[in-house]
């Protein structure tokens, strides 16, 4: 399998095939087909940009663990091109946005699609430049910082445009920051999974008090679970305490009926409680099973949370969504599997 993926053009063909399948499903004669495309796209952007951002952040601070998974993390760069292509497929869906009938200066279809596509392409270009630079060099750090700047802008636009404007005029100034922190969180979770996938189970148990790349990644996941909870709480508390009808409605729609209520709780469990509690003991931080559980929990949490964000505003074709998400995950696995070497 690895030999096949190593062949020139095979990964590109796989991405094209996966993209085509996702595209076909988005045209399925079902009312929620476009909604499922949007959700898959949001998940793809979050994890792909997050993986590259994790590598870039590690590069900036000379993190030791980056050496183990740099190639795998940067192998997902082509998926950003796929994301830009999928974004174009959402054009017919834009009529579902509440502002579409009364477009303004900022919220109008051409500018909306144009700026989001531009930032995805910018993220792709800066990520490519970063991936091409030698690890540890000053040039790599400079390029990493450029990527991170574009990453923040791109994630913020994703949050404010693709998600928040679905409920226009509802606004939350924190949503952009929340999205890029969550994307980085997903990037660290993916890093841990890539590490276990590529490096396999550590041959010997680490000495008590010793550090391994895996435990460093676990500490980052643990820290980001706390940070995610802090941002979640800051957003929730301000809206709940303010108790203004036009603000509170956003939360009320997601917690007052089943199954969104249960899914909201599930997202909270998966993105905070599970990674926090699983990774709390020191030994768990270098235990492959515990780390895998936490990482899978985080990635599932991101997908479910995106569903919770979209579901009250758009219809989602669930079978199509399931196939699209599987396609996206397989593309991540294929991209990472293609680069088995250590840098």
């Amino acid at each position, binding site marked *: 399998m690895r030999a096949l993926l190593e062949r020139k053009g095979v990964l590109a063909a796989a991405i094209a095939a996966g993209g085509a399948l996702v595209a076909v499903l988005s045209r399925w004669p079902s009312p929620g087909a476009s909604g499922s495309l949007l959700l898959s796209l949001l998940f793809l952007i979050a994890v792909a940009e997050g993986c590259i951002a994790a590598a870039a952040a590690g590069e900036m*601070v000379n993190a030791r663990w980056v050496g183990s998974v740099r190639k795998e993390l940067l192998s997902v760069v082509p998926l950003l091109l796929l994301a830009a292509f999928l974004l174009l497929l959402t054009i017919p869906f834009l009529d579902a946005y509440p502002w579409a009938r009364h477009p*303004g200066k*900022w*919220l109008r279809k051409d500018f909306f699609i144009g700026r989001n596509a531009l930032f995805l392409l910018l993220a792709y270009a800066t990520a490519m430049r970063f991936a091409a630079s030698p690890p540890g060099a000053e040039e790599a750090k400079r390029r990493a910082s450029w990527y991170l*700047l574009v990453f*923040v802008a791109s994630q*913020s636009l994703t949050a*404010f445009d693709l998600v928040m404007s679905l409920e226009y*005029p509802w*606004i*939350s*100034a*924190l*949503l*952009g*920051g929340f999205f890029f922190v969550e994307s980085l969180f997903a990037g660290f979770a993916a890093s841990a999974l890539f590490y276990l996938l590529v490096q396999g189970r550590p041959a010997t148990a680490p000495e008590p008090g010793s550090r391994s790349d895996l435990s460093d990644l676990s500490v980052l996941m643990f820290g980001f679970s*706390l*940070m995610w909870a*802090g*941002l979640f709480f*800051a*957003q929730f*508390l*301000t*809206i709940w*305490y*303010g108790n*203004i009808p036009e603000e509170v409605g956003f939360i009320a729609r997601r917690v007052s009926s089943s199954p969104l209520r249960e899914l909201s709780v599930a997202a909270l469990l998966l993105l905070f409680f599970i990674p926090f509690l699983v990774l709390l003991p020191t030994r768990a931080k270098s235990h492959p099973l515990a780390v895998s559980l936490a990482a899978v929990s985080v990635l599932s949490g991101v997908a479910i949370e995106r569903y919770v964000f979209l579901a009250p505003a758009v219809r989602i074709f669930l079978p199509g969504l399931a196939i699209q998400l599987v396609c996206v995950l397989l593309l991540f696995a294929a991209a990472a599997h293609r680069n088995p070497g250590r840098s």
Partner: protein
Amino acid sequence: MNRGEGGMETPDRYAKAERDILAAMGKPGKAWLAGAGFAAVLMLIGGVLWAYQIREGLGVAGYTHPVNWAVYITNFVFWVGIAHSGTLISAVLFLFRAKFRTSFNRAAEAMTVFALMVAGLFPIVHLGRSWVFYYLLPYPNQRQLWVNFRSPLIWDVFAVGTYFTVSLVFFYVGMIPDFAVAQRWKEGIRKKVYKVLSLGWKGTDRQWRHYAMLYLFLAAFATPLVASVHSVVSWDFAMSILPGWHTTIFAPYFVAGAIFSGTAMVITLVIPLRKALNLQEYVTDDHFESIAKIMLFTSLIVTYSYIVEFGLAWYGENPFETEAFRYRIAGNFRYLAWAMIFCNSLVPLTLFVRKLRRNMAYLLIVSLLVNVGMWLERFVIIVTSLAHDYDPYVWGTYSPTFVEVGISLGSFGMFFLLYLLFVKNLPVLSITEIKEHL
């Protein structure tokens, strides 16, 4: 025997480090006396003006309807911000194993404790009847009075109180091995005091093991605590339904702003300290470059918050929000708002240039400008939103009186006086950690 740089043997290098760092605790020179004297005079002026305000009432402050929170609350948020970053810098850099931490951790921790002492005074200064400030404390009493837990001001009491306790313990625990070193080098009453403070520290393996575990625990505990406490301070504003205040981004924005201003204050304090005490060997330009990068990073977060706040006020088309932000940059306080943007967003961008990050004079100027900019930021946020809320009928403006200016200057006097006393009485750098890196 190991030989390090300069061919000096390891025990000699350790002894030299101890001597160099403890030399700062010698007899005060003229510059120290002048600085301490000036700070004491400022503090005295502040104290006298506060007494005058207590006697005459809050009317002597510039409070007018609708601006009933102004310079005092600005000072509170500013000093809490300075305080928050001290422990955060020390604890986070410890958790991230950043070696340059040793140059700044003691200064940052001391700064935290002193800034909190100053900050804690301002809510009391701001009270109409300062002498009943203890009503804020949740203690059982016979009058059936109980605190209002729904009030964000009560959250402040808990948050700041907890933070002060943890910061003080963190500061003290970090100094225990250094007290043991100091008592070896000092004579007389000072030797006795340091001996008591060192809690019988002998430097045995067992003591070091417990010390390392406790220090790690405190660092890990302090880090989320810092974020939570400054979030609580931000919620003093965000929980009210006031245009410009009621926004979800306030908590992370205030936390980033706190680290930004605190980093600037650490640089402001340590550059002159290094020169005055000849500590160039231990606090190097590389260390300053690293901390300048943190200042640049946090400046970018603060700038992002400015952009998002203004951008969403425009995007949301809420007339009250739009007007609040228009007034902020084009109203009576526009010069302060533009100065804030200049100091906090534009000037730090120059730190992308490596040469400037390593230029101490330039770094000092930038850090001073950031301190000014962050004070202005708090002032602009507080005053403009109050002065220009929903109903044009009640719009007003504000200008501070000499009492508010004097008390504010007094707070700076108190902070610098405490800091100068710290320099002469406690080790300004962590001796044991410096020795680890020799």
